[in-house]
């Protein structure tokens, strides 16, 4: 049956569709301006695909706002919900329309690029796979942005909800970083892609997979696609569709222009943000003391009150809000203290020594105040995992130092003090990587500060398996091998 509502949308916006389509294609092809050499064309093609992806992503944000804003106005719902078009048809038509525009522009643009510049070296099947994936990605994003827009009851709140829900994965990641940074000895950083937050972000999953698919297609790189980044968006799209049914088809029309007090609007958003930030502050309070975080708690309380004002459109500090804040603060401190007492819930001593091709120990030793005296020592020991047994002695040595460093971290709250502090004996960096001499995005890095000074014999042991250099005033600040330095110094 002919969809008259779709026909109307298409006819009513035909000029805009053509105008923005031409603009989209023109912007996507800007990398090709002025460069025609064969080697550069592949880079240009990659850039073109990337610009198209970026613009379609922006459209996946803008179109739900444009197409669904009528449900947020008392006057416009009178017109649209009185139309002889059922709500489910309005919903599916608007979603399809947004999808056709966002994906259609991408498909047409990249198809032109493929025909003009990539026909000779791009496998069509790979091109088709990319299109299929982008279709899933854009549909998921449109469904989710529409849902976030519709959980609110007015246009302003709808835009706030889209932004707020988009930022939640980043805030989750920041909380994880904060936990790792303060509560876990050694583990210095986790990649966003290695955190669970990635699965809450269709944008991250989309771009991550897109970049790999384009690299495979254009530069024939062999990289591993995370299948979960394809499955999870599909599951999210199905869940999101149910949410859309609830918030559009079963929507109470009279919600238009009201305060956005639906559970998944401000109530969830404000309290999720508050809980995550309170957790971050809790970790930092236990690590650095209340003197450091007290002003931040006050700032958070102020922001919490402002957010409540934006939500209810009136300043309302009631006991429930204050109680939530107080209980949240107390609970976050309990969790943070629990994390500290259990050495980061056991994460600190639970690290791998294999799984990659190389295990590397490196770092600096503070010679001032140690047996060697007056110089700085840098060292590196690179151990191929398949020859681990041959390096057992040095691995045991470093692992003992590592265990002591972890114990020291939780014994004192000043484990991360720097050179000027007399307790700084040097640092130990442990890395697991497949490519020791080049960039490895999947490199695992652990950073510790020594719990005790290293003796000359210990340095000699390191030198036996790796490379140890000395520098300082005595060497005119030039790096000198340990053996040579000890010989000159008669040690």
């Amino acid at each position, binding site marked *: 049956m002919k969809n008259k509502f779709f026909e109307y949308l298409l006819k*009513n916006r035909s000029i805009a569709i053509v105008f923005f389509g031409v603009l989209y294609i023109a912007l996507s092809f800007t990398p090709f301006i002025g460069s025609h050499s064969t080697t550069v064309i592949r880079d240009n093609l990659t850039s073109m695909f990337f610009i198209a992806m970026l613009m379609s992503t922006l459209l996946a944000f803008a179109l739900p706002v444009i197409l669904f804003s009528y449900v947020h106005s008392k006057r416009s719902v009178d017109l649209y919900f009185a139309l002889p078009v059922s709500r489910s048809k309005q919903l599916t038509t608007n979603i399809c329309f947004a999808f056709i525009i966002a994906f259609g522009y991408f498909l047409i643009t990249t198809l032109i690029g493929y025909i003009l510049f990539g026909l000779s070296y791009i496998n069509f099947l790979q091109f088709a796979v990319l299109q299929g994936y982008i279709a899933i990605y854009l549909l998921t994003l449109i469904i989710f942005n529409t849902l976030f827009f519709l959980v609110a009851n007015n246009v302003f709140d709808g835009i706030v909800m889209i932004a707020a829900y988009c930022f939640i994965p980043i805030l989750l990641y920041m909380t994880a970083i904060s936990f790792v940074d303060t509560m876990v000895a050694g583990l210095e950083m986790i990649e966003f892609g290695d955190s669970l937050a990635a699965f809450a972000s269709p944008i991250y999953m989309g771009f991550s997979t897109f970049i790999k698919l384009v690299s495979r297609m254009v530069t024939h790189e062999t990289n591993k696609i995370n299948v979960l980044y394809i499955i999870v968006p599909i599951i999210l799209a199905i869940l999101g569709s149910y949410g859309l049914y609830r918030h559009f088809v079963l929507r109470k*029309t009279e919600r238009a222009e009201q305060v956005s007090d639906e559970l998944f609007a401000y109530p969830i958003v404000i309290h999720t943000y508050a809980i995550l930030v309170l957790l971050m502050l809790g970790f930092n309070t236990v690590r650095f003391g209340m003197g450091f975080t007290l002003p931040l708690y006050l700032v958070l309380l102020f922001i919490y009150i402002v957010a409540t004002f934006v939500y209810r459109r009136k300043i309302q500090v009631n006991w429930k809000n204050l109680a939530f804040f107080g209980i949240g603060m107390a609970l976050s401190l309990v969790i943070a203290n629990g994390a500290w007492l259990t050495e980061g819930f056991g994460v600190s001593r639970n690290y791998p020594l294999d799984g990659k091709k190389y295990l590397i120990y490196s770092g600096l030793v503070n010679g001032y105040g140690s047996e060697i005296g007056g110089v700085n020592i840098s060292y590196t020991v690179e151990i191929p995992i398949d020859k681990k047994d041959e390096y057992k002695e040095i691995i045991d040595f470093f692992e003992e130092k590592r265990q002591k460093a972890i114990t020291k971290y939780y014994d004192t709250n000043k484990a991360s003090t720097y050179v000027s502090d007399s307790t700084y004996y040097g640092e130990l960096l442990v890395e697991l990587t497949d490519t020791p001499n080049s960039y490895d995005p999947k490199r695992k890095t652990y950073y510790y500060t020594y719990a005790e000074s290293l003796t000359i014999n210990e340095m000699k042991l390191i030198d036996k398996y790796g490379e140890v250099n000395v520098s300082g005033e005595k060497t005119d600040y030039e790096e000198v091998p340990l053996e040579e330095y000890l010989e000159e110094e008669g040690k």
Partner: protein
Amino acid sequence: MLEINNLYKQFKDKEVLKDLNLTVSGGSIFGLVGINGAGKSTLLRLIAGVYEPDGGAVILDGVNTFKDEGIRKKIAFVSDEQYYPVGSTIDSLKLMYKTIYDFNEEAYQKYLQMFDLQPKMTITNLSKGMKRRVSLLFALSINAKLILLDEAYDGLEPLARLRFKQALAELIEEENVSVIISSHNLKELEDICDSFGILEDGKIVSYGDLLESKDMIHKYQLAFHQELTRDDFKDLDLLHFENEGRVYQLVIRGKEAEVTEKLQAMNPALLDVLQVNFEELFIYELESRGNGYEK
């Protein structure tokens, strides 16, 4: 025929309509009146399918107007707060009605001329009255069987009002269209409506044929030799009692002949019977229920 059965609607904790029942027959103009906040606009939105009833149903020609999208093709709803997309012209709005409704080009051209409108006019730049004309233009151009007009006369100048009334009269005569008009301007409604309903406290408290109803309520001016109190008229359905000395002005429901006979039996020095207009009918109906009306 429009049938409203046990219609119930609440906004959060506030009950707006409570088990409302109403029937509007084809080819009639129904005046919906009530004090501010009585729920007139809510009722019209429920009939138009904009709001979902929390109970009961609105049935037009045997079909539920909320559940069946097809029946809404036959309903034209002119809201009290009209919406026009930014930058839209009469032509661009016509595209929507032409694509989605059963659009009548001949009627459109006729009413375009009647309301003195130009297809290229940008609607958002028009005055309130002109915008109202645009709404009415499309309501009259889609072959509707039921036209819902919420505060329809707001902003229309007298000549436009007259033309619109003529257009409605033609439609009813030729197409058997039903019209429901809500308005605070009861004098305007009186000119055009053949039936009415008074909405109060979420229910239709009084409804029926306008002429018959007006015929059932009269204003009586009386003078007596002795002073009387309200209790002396307790045998009559007294809607309004007012006196100055021994001169009385009463509004009584009942057949004029029967009421007059009863009053004559009280031996008045003077008895005059006056007709009430729609506005007075409305006021006295509400007054008799202990409710006021801002005139």
